[in-house]
């Protein structure tokens, strides 16, 4: 009979108390996909940057694992670190010329152009919607995009998103509302007649 899989809490305890790196690597293996896909979304499909930020996220998590109080889910804690890493990087990049970032976004959009389940059977329509959605998300501020990604892509509640984004729940709601107004204008062509 195979040994039952350890919970995140058990793995964290092993990693903290015994500096068990095998336990930590299991945690990374479990959560790497969620963290990396979230960062890919936040960075508008820039896979290289997303992986750099994901690595930074897990290194920070490793250093601060002892301070994780289990008040939230481990994944929520990781999202918080990842979002902070993304926002800090975005602040640094804001001073750089926009040319490279636009190229990254364009590359990412092409790389991520997988069929979107838009409710219709037409793959061309789905691909077109996916492209428009990526472009629309690109016009949001980093904070607005982070709020949309946490609430819609990671399916977090407003309270959980507020924990991740380290801001009051009201601020999350404001970011979502503003983001939706911008998305509505950008995606108007997809509105039903």
């Amino acid at each position, binding site marked *: 009979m195979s040994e039952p899989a350890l919970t995140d809490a058990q793995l964290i305890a092993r990693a903290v108390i015994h500096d068990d790196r095998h336990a930590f690597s299991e945690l990374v293996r479990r959560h790497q996909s969620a963290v990396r896909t979230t960062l890919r979304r936040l960075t508008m499909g820039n896979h290289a940057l997303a992986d750099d930020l994901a690595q930074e996220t897990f290194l920070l998590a490793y250093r601060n694992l002892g301070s994780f109080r289990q008040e939230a889910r481990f994944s929520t804690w990781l999202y918080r670190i990842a979002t902070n890493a993304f926002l800090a990087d975005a602040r640094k990049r804001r001073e750089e010329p926009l040319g490279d970032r636009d190229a990254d976004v364009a590359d990412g959009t092409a790389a991520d152009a997988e069929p979107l389940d838009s409710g219709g059977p037409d793959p061309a329509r789905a691909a077109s919607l996916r492209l428009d959605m990526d472009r629309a998300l690109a016009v949001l501020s980093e904070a607005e995009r982070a709020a949309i990604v946490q609430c819609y892509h990671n399916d977090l509640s407003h309270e959980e998103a507020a924990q991740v984004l380290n801001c009051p729940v009201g601020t999350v709601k404001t970011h979502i509302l503003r983001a939706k107004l911008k998305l509505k204008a950008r995606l108007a062509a997809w*509105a039903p007649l």
Partner: protein
Amino acid sequence: MTDRELHRTDTGDDWLDGLLRADGREHRAAYADDNGFTARLMAALPAPAALPAWRKPALAALWASAGIGIAVALPGAVFDVAHGMLRAILGQPVSFTGIAAAVAALGAATWAAAAIALRDD
């Protein structure tokens, strides 16, 4: 209505919510293959904090000197404590030979325990 449902409908734009929901479902269904990510990350972790090589001998010497110091400072105390303990345990008067044998056994056990505790992992 749960909060999760609320944040999708509070603008009344159901079509936009539908698009975002579909995008979110696709995002959650997507799986990023590890492709060596975990291995690269584990290699980038800081090296485990290694204790300096001189720590164990220094610790052993410190304890030994402390023990000798106590024995020299209180020459009668060790004998009196051992005598009292043996009397309490055995419930009868004990001879000096008996105490010496017990102290020797206790010392051997201590040395064995110290050897196990200070062995290389």
